[in-house]
């Protein structure tokens, strides 16, 4: 009887090696995350608006409420005008988006950018995220001590399936404040501390979002 070219054991070994090799390739291939950004992050300073509310004015009359809200908003806009020139232009993009992209890459995730308003097709990526920027800036975080901190506020929806118009309702709110606190007077007295505080909170928020998505996506 003629012997086969390869024994059964050799065939089994070759098959096992092939399987292991393909599994290794699959592990090495970066997973992809499709990210869509809807909206724009606005710089804001929330000072007076964090200290008062319009309760009395609302019940005292809608005109009163309007006046009170207007005064508060005006006071805050003066503070915003004083702080904003010291903040890096495009801070959101430069710090948040860049840090998020880098953090995702560190975790083996390649970012695929999707144009706003378009819906990614299934198979575009392994994970999908829609980011809804809202505000970043400074706000009162302790109404007793009047201490402020840099903050960022946004929403995100993420899933292993493409996020369509219907599933966009499952947005998760994120509100993150920087660890260090400062009074408004200190901030204005030393404006060199403004931009690093914004950078710090935007980078921290980007890393937190990356971890939230990476560890909790379903």
């Amino acid at each position: 009887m003629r012997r086969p070219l390869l024994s059964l054991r050799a065939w089994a070994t070759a098959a096992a090696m092939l399987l292991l090799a393909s599994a290794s390739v699959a592990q090495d291939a970066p997973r992809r995350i499709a990210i869509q950004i809807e909206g724009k992050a606005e710089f804001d300073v929330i000072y007076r608006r964090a200290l008062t509310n319009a309760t009395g004015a609302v019940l005292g009359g809608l005109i009163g409420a309007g006046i009170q809200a207007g005064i508060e908003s005006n006071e805050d806009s003066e503070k915003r005008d004083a702080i904003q020139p010291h903040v890096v232009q495009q801070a959101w993009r430069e710090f948040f988006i860049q840090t998020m992209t880098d953090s995702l890459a560190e975790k083996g995730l390649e970012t695929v950018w999707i144009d706003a308003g378009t819906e990614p097709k299934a198979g575009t990526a392994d994970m999908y995220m829609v980011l809804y920027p809202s505000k970043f800036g400074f706000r009162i975080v302790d109404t007793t001590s009047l201490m402020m901190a840099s903050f960022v506020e946004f929403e995100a929806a993420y899933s292993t399936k493409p996020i369509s118009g219907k599933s966009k309702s499952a947005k998760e709110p994120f509100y993150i404040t920087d660890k260090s606190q400062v009074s408004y007077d200190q901030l204005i007295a030393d404006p060199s501390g403004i931009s690093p505080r914004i950078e710090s909170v935007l980078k921290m928020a980007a890393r937190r979002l990356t971890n939230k998505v990476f560890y909790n996506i379903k």
Partner: protein
Amino acid sequence: MKTLYKLTALAALAALLPGCAFTPAQLDVKPHAATQVAGPLKDVGPVKFSATQLEDARPDKARIGWKKNGFGQNTADITTSQPVDQIVESTIDKAIVDSGHTVAGDGAIQIVGTVDRFWFDMDVNFWTVTFIGDVACTLDFVDAQTKQSIYKSKYAGSYSVDKAAGLEKTWTDVMAKALDKLIEDVTLDEDMADALKAHIAAK
């Protein structure tokens, strides 16, 4: 018709606010049991922590918020049924246990610190009320043997929601969600996870 609806809602709100404003409210606040947040803390090899021990360092320890009358004046306290430090301690322990670690009396790492903020607020707008929950604490992760600090940081959880109206059930839920966000802040802190990993590796 739409304006009439809005005016009716405002009138109902106006009637509701002062109606219950003078009775203190006690909220049973705890994080939602179903909240499970995974993060870098999970990647730290299983650690036995001692139960978290915090000191209440809030400037106002008597309440967690104010009930207000129709003119925005503070009329009665909002408090919690359990002491605030214990609520935050249990919340931190939940974050630790949910991340695959254990909490016991003789843990290798102690978590000590302060509760810096635990506040509930309401901001009444034209047609809605914004309910705001805000919790902040400082945590120090300490080696139980050497008593040396491994990592110290501030953590915070904040949640706000706009509703047409809401009473104690809503307020409790808002504070619970702020605690859920505090868990998230702890669990997702990769600097803390890295510090713990380095400490364990060096032992």
